């Protein structure tokens, strides 16, 4: 006996309705974002200026990149607590390669990406080879290792004045579109973020490996028995997450023209929040790239708008916490609505 009430005629009916609720929910997060923008725009004339919007883009970029990496990890039912610390280590390595070794910024950038990817592989192997019971543990360990290492190699000091090159270009330069008064300057990092989101969208929706990430999170045993190389998928997602932390390090280093070992404190939690606000399920198998983007934007807009309205930073934290809970509750409601049909 199925749990369906009636052997309903198999018409497109339920199918369409399901899509509508899903679209409505996707819109739900988007509507939330639009609502936020509207509120801030109405309450402060300086919010909707191109200067401030570019500012939001700059402030959101790092979290948006980390959230992408976090998304693929959470899709497998995992979590990566190490991204903030990995970002810090990659950032100081980048800075040291450029300043201490005197190499070109491009080599510093490659070094940062390599550090991120390597620590990500480490996370993956800890999970799949040492069979640590949960990625919470392996990445918690990695978080401390990376943070400690960043402090050790810099002696706790920050390194500044990285000079010019690709890192500065990505993190600090802007392109001027249009001319005269109507000209808008768009930060280069915005292009990097957009490119990353397009690439991840394609990767997760169009490729075999991308779908295997969903399968691994949805039902690991079923995936394994279907011939999906579950362990390799797991190593891959942590590697991707580490790589994104490396990329975020490049952006942040360019933006701040420095590398400092205390960078990225708490960034992992922002990345996780962005995923969750965007509708990613903690149990794995459910989550989208577009939702994650909206989640990251909601976080960025919220911080920026509250700043403009000069809300105390401590209160900002309270607000963001409430938004996370509210967003997940909406998700719960949606699921319940989906079941009772």
């Amino acid at each position, binding site marked *: 006996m199925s*749990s369906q009430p009636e052997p309903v005629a198999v018409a497109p009916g339920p199918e369409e309705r399901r899509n509508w609720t899903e679209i409505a929910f996707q819109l739900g997060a988007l509507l939330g974002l639009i609502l936020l923008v509207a509120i801030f725009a109405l309450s402060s004339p300086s919010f909707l200026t191109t200067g401030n919007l570019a500012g939001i883009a700059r402030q959101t970029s790092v979290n948006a990149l980390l959230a992408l990496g976090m998304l693929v990890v959470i899709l497998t039912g995992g979590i990566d607590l190490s991204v903030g610390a990995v970002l810090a280590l990659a950032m100081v390595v980048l800075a040291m390669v450029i300043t201490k070794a005197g190499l070109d910024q491009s080599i510093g950038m490659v070094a940062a990406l390599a550090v991120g990817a390597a620590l990500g592989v480490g996370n993956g192997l800890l999970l799949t080879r040492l069979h640590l019971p949960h990625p919470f543990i392996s990445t918690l360990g990695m978080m401390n290792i990376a943070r400690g290492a960043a402090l050790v190699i810099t002696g706790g000091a920050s390194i500044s004045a990285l000079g010019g090159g690709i890192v500065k270009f990505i993190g600090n330069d802007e392109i001027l579109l249009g001319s005269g008064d109507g000209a808008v300057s768009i930060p280069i990092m915005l292009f990097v973020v957009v490119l990353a989101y397009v690439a991840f969208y394609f990767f997760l929706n*169009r490729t075999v490996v991308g779908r295997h990430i969903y399968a691994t999170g949805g039902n690991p045993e079923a995936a394994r028995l279907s011939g999906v190389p579950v362990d390799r998928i797991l190593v891959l997602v942590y590697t991707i997450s580490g790589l994104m932390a490396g990329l975020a390090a490049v952006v942040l280093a360019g933006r701040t023209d420095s590398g400092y070992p205390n960078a990225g404190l708490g960034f992992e939690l922002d990345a996780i929040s962005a995923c969750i606000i965007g509708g990613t399920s903690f149990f794995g198998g459910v989550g989208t790239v577009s939702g994650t983007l909206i989640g990251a934007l909601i976080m960025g807009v919220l911080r920026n708008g509250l700043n403009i309205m000069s809300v105390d930073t401590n209160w900002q934290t309270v607000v963001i916490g409430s938004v996370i809970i509210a967003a997940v509750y909406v998700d719960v409601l949606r699921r319940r609505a989906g079941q009772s049909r």
Partner: protein
Amino acid sequence: MTTTAGPADVLLRMSGITKRFPGVVALDDVRLEVRAGEVHVLLGENGAGKSTLMKILGGAYHADAGMIELKGREVKITSPRDALDLGIAVIYQEFNLVAQLSVMENVFMGREPRIPGRPGVIDWARMRRETAAILKELDLPIDPARQVGKLGVAQQQMVEIARSVSASADVVVMDEPTSALTDHEIIQLFRVVKQLQARGAGVIYISHRLEEVPQVGSTVTVLRDGRYVDTVPASTPIPDLIRLMVGRDLTKQYPKELVEPGAEVLRVEHLERRGVLRDASFSVRAGEILGIAGLVGAGRTELVRAIFGADHLDSGRIFVDGKQVAVHHPVDAIRAGIGLLPEDRKTQGLVLLLSIAENISMASPGDVSRRGFLDMRKVAARARGFVESLRIRTPSVHRLARSLSGGTQQKVVLAKWLASRSRVLIFDEPTRGIDVGAKVEVYQLMTTLVQQGAAIVMVSSELPEVLGMSDRVLVMRGGSIVAELAGDEINQERILAAAMGQEHVVAA
């Protein structure tokens, strides 16, 4: 492709297969020989080792000893991937679908079609087209893009079948594929099996429904207690097959004894749940077995779940021993003396990560605890009693429920409700997935229970069981109780006619 040693048409040979789990020898020197184009039925009691043997073939488990030959060549299967690459497709007894993904993705998982020239990029259009074609062949009106988690149990099972068919494998294993299917779907399944057979594939088929053996099978191999017993033709008379399986004769399939009905124990009035239940009323007396028949989706499970407080009711009243009880939660039902053996025991009946003993005491902790503390010795002692009386096959009551064979888990759920000494026991598909011997034991238990004054409500899709055990039969259709039959009225024709709504009365 290559055929060398051995008789030309032996497709698969497993020999000397041995598998030990801590405390259990699941398989001991077992052999199995499958020819191309045959349907090889694997029979055995619960826990005989059938699923374990197939998991070894599918690469999910590793054998401790033994050899597998495919088309005359020895092969090493160390992972599910190996098995798939060798052309072995397995439908496992437990569902193995990713609920969050679409039907087509599940059908093609692990071998997604790719766009030529673009490595790793899925060809969604082709995937959809081919899935639609397979579903059509199976006569399944499901949208390939539909999320699997939103399908009913039977449809999910059919998706698994679609997957194994689409793999165009040489060896297709089906571990109890029909236990969740309706008659119509079973007919479709048999057609598919015949097609696989005609294509020259070897099909290994596991089922506890012995009447299916001559319908689909060519050859039968029987296992008992992890050992090979015999291989015989599928035309072997069923009593002989039973003797091979259980090692003894089963005298009476339905040990029904007439019990003088006593006072009314349970009465429900005008139960309503929007879109699910419509004005359902009935009563059952002590000493009575009330069968509830109907087609899949008629609302039977929904009815009993609502009575048990597992699902919400829009309106209606429930009386136990003449007193109205408010049932908002299973706890209320259990207090009132109602017990439910759910249809899907794996997810609803058992806590798989707790031991057998703890599961048995779950619904009646009061009997084995003092001031909130469980007396683990009593818990174990009581469990041992049930392990003996129900012949639950396990080395210890401290085993995790997860490690038991499918049918054995069923017996543990049964023990749980027996332990709670409910006044009304609701059995939803009580014998699904359990072997012939255990079936008779369950029937015997029912008989004993009603003799002791309990009332039993039995939801069943197995007509012979409804006919053989019920004192009265309710037939449901579309969420309503459409007929009540008693005495001589209880026969196959009347039940089917009512279940189908009179108009298309065809023998199923």
